[in-house]
């Protein structure tokens, strides 16, 4: 195991975050604050509570998940796409580094960034609403598993993408609708039965529901099923990456 290489890639990626502190940290904080002002305060003041929790507090886990997903996919994809784009990938491919070590460096950094921002949002949220965490350990498990899984997903997109347009396609076009329709801002019990059934095909529902359960013990689906689903996405992502590494797909011709 080439730990020195994993560390180098990880630190190199984290250094980019420090360099772009403004975009990396400040902008998600501002975005989330806006959500709180619009949904939590303006609209939320007219909604008494959802399943016994104040609306502002209810949407907090969903908002954290929304940011976590976007950040992890974004960081995970740009991390590997950028060297491909500039050509500096030659160095990583010609270094004595196994693909798993490359993955560990890039995905580790992307997940770390996502987690840091997730925690910052949680702290930000605590200024707006009363946060109560019923199962802190499970909350961390959900947070870490989601960060890792979606950083892996980002990595896949980064390897696949041949242009910046393709790179942005998934985070811009697919993630927001899935998050908005995944129960971030409402309980799916509020939906008509048909849309409730449809929602169960939305992977984000499981993430948000499980994560919210760790806060308030209210869930749209059984938290164990949520955990199982995240585990399933994790395995799927790892399998796809395994296949990519084995075939050299768009990395090593």
């Amino acid at each position: 195991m080439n730990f020195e290489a994993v560390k180098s890639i990880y630190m190199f990626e984290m250094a980019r975050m420090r360099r772009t502190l403004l975009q990396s940290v400040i902008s998600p904080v501002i975005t989330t604050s806006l959500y709180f002002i619009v949904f939590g305060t303006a609209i939320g003041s007219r909604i008494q509570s959802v399943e016994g929790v104040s609306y502002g507090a209810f949407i907090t886990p969903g908002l954290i998940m929304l940011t976590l997903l976007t950040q992890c996919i974004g960081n995970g994809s740009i991390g590997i796409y950028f060297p491909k784009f500039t050509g500096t990938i030659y160095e990583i491919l010609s270094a004595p580094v196994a693909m798993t070590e490359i993955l560990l460096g890039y995905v580790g950094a992307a997940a770390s960034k996502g987690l840091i921002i997730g925690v910052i949002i949680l702290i930000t949220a605590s200024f707006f609403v009363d946060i109560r965490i019923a199962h802190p350990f499970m909350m961390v498990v959900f947070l870490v598993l989601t960060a890792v899984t979606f950083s892996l997903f980002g990595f896949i997109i980064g390897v696949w993408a041949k242009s910046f347009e393709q790179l942005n396609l998934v985070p811009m076009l697919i993630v927001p609708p899935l998050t908005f329709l995944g129960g971030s801002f409402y309980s799916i019990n509020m939906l008509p039965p048909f849309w409730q059934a449809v929602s169960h095909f939305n992977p984000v529902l499981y993430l948000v529901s499980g994560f919210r359960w760790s806060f308030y013990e209210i869930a749209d689906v059984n938290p164990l099923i949520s955990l199982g689903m995240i585990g399933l996405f994790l395995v799927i992502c790892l399998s796809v990456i395994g296949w990519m590494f084995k075939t050299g797909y768009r990395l090593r011709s």
Partner: protein
Amino acid sequence: MAPIVSVQKLTKTYGNGFEALKGVDLDIEEGEILALLGPNGAGKTTLISIICGIVNPSSGSVLVGGHDVVKDFRQTRSLIGLVPQELTTDQFETVWNTVSFSRGVYGKKPDPALIESVLKDLSLWSKKDNMIRELSGGMKRRVLIAKALSHEPKILFLDEPTAGVDVNLRREMWQVVEKLRANGVTIILTTHYIEEAEEIADRVGVINGGQLLLIEKKTALMKKLGRKQLRLELSEPLTALPASLSAYDLTLSQDGMALLHDYQSEDGQGSVVPLLAALAQENIHFRDLSTRQSSLEDIFVALVGDKA
């Protein structure tokens, strides 16, 4: 001594069906400087990329330091430093960070003193805290060399190192190469500038159309394929060559004012002396004479031209 790089029956066909290498055999000795010549698209970069691990071979094998480049990639890649053809750099990094990163990726513990000496050798020390995008093209080329040297490779690949580089840097670069060679580093370079190969290489290989056309000691190559030409500037124009001179390989220039004679430099007897005697007999006088030896470039053009 076993070769440090041994390429056997190497082929590469890319996904789009392009056959970049069609069975290349090549042994590179430890400590030598090998120049690979060839036109664009000849397969030079593909060959280097396979040895360095960037491209997977379709068939055949490559051993570096006795290890297979696919199976034992850790051992082989640790030995190799690569300076790519394109100026691919992390534009937003500082020189110091990007060179230190290279060392880390190769699994080596940080060594600021070593990085310092590498940067100083390449006249990059004053730029160490500059972002790479602020540097000129030549400076970026130095950064790429510094990155390749940051992990103390035993084998250095320079892919078209002097493309777009000014005279100063070229001279400095060859100084670095000489220093590395003195330390026993094996150096493989590809180049379009044939004078360069002529000047610094021990051996020269010529690649075209995915095949290694020849590989030979530079001196032997020059001897074997080097032709000499004698040019005689005549005092009086000639309209035709006298029949008595037909035994010699002679051509008359268009204006009839010069005679050109091609001969092998290694001819035991040499045809120059008898030719001059024959000319005197025919009463043909000349006012000047010059000889020219073919350069590696002529040899190269002749070789590649023949096969094309």
